[in-house]
């Protein structure tokens, strides 16, 4: 099995790990957003969605553990790549200028990534590992977003997420080799669209809850 370790720990292998875990997070974001949209339906709709989700039982646990494992792989591999890349240019340029290839997304990947990690921990503490006795998830969520500070923080986090996926999505396609001259414009546009969906889809929810509170 040495060949497997050699393949996965090579530069391209590590990028596959980033791409595959990253793509699964994109799928997760999509389903998470679809679920969250029930918030527009009010208390009953959102609580029913949450109950339905939790009735999945073991299946949900497997999905959560899977996401945790993927997150570990994504963060550890990402940090390794970041440090290796710093080492690959020990003497920096005095004059740094872009030839026009980089985007805000691509240039900030490690930083937006770390911010998102912090956000995910914060988010889980807020709404997942919270005492739900005598209340419902809808009440917890609406109470949280009655506070403008929370709204601001969540909207900012979603902008960071959008910047991250604006590079991450097309980059993942490129890394798994699903790109050639014909696809290139399409996957870049898809990436921007997905970033917009993330920013607007998730970002408007807290604002809506604040206004309707």
């Amino acid at each position: 099995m040495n060949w497997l370790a050699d393949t996965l720990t090579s530069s391209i292998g590590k990028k596959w790990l980033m791409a595959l875990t990253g793509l699964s997070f994109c799928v997760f974001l999509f389903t998470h957003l679809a679920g969250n949209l029930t918030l527009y339906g009010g208390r009953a709709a959102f609580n029913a969605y949450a109950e339905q989700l939790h009735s999945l039982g073991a299946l949900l646990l497997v999905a959560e553990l899977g996401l945790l494992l993927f997150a570990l792989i994504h963060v550890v591999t990402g940090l390794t790549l970041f440090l290796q890349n710093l080492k690959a240019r020990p003497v920096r340029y005095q004059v740094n200028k872009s030839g026009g290839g980089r985007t805000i997304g691509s240039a900030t990947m490690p930083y937006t990534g770390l911010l998102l990690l912090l956000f995910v921990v914060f988010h889980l503490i807020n709404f997942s590992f919270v005492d739900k006795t005598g209340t419902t998830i809808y009440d917890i969520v609406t109470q949280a977003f009655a506070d403008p500070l929370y709204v601001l923080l969540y909207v900012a986090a979603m902008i960071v997420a959008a910047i991250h996926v604006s590079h991450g999505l097309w980059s993942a396609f490129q890394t798994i080799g699903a790109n050639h001259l014909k696809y290139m414009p399409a996957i870049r546009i898809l990436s921007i669209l997905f970033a917009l969906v993330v920013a607007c889809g998730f970002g408007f929810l807290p604002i809506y809850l604040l206004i309707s509170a």
Partner: protein
Amino acid sequence: MSTQHLNLTLKVWRQKGPADKGRFDTLQVRDISPDMSFLEMLDVVNEQLTLEGKAPIAFDHDCREGICGMCGAVVNGRPHGALKGTTLCQLHMRHFENGDVIAIEPFRAMAFKVIKDLAVDRSAFDQIIQAGGYISVNAGGAADANAIPVPQDRAELAMDAAQCIGCGACVAACPNASAMLFVSAKLSQMALLPQGRPEAARRAIAMVRAMDRMGFGNCSNETECEAECPKEINITNIARLNREYFKAGFGSAVK
């Protein structure tokens, strides 16, 4: 386009040898013809330095017609200067203005050691080619030129990849000092043709391993390489390298 001669301020990286820390030297140069190439401008500066009894600036060059890949420096933060699709030897002084301040640095990467001033050791590229950037041709009678059919569009793609002159601007431009564009071009020119297929898996693995061993960074699809490549090699070659490496890693018997 001006025909007026240029007076310039050069901030040139001077480094006595690989162990030296290096520093920027500021030089005033006068009366540079806009018809000169960037390297000819450096020739004039070197003549002046030699007459003053100072060491001339060491820089790499050979063909001076944009085909050998020997020249290259980072000019005002851009490998081979700001002009698109041009090597440093083909960059003419008419693209600069009188009074410009021009910063000139060597290509910087852990895998590219500075030998002296702007001259950089790019033998890491040679080692990648030695690892697998070739096809094995058994000796014997010359094969008939058209015995193996190659579709025109494939041949074009292979030729586009084969344009790579191995100058190292992709590494210099990459924020991660990754050599993926170079390796992908050198692999693609063969992977795209039937003559390259028999050794495709072994080649992909050997070249990627050599690249990693040399200490180049990891590609994060910043696409700065494509923007700065004097031969405008496309990054879809990198996608092909990723595919070929996957096929080799999981779909072949090569370890």
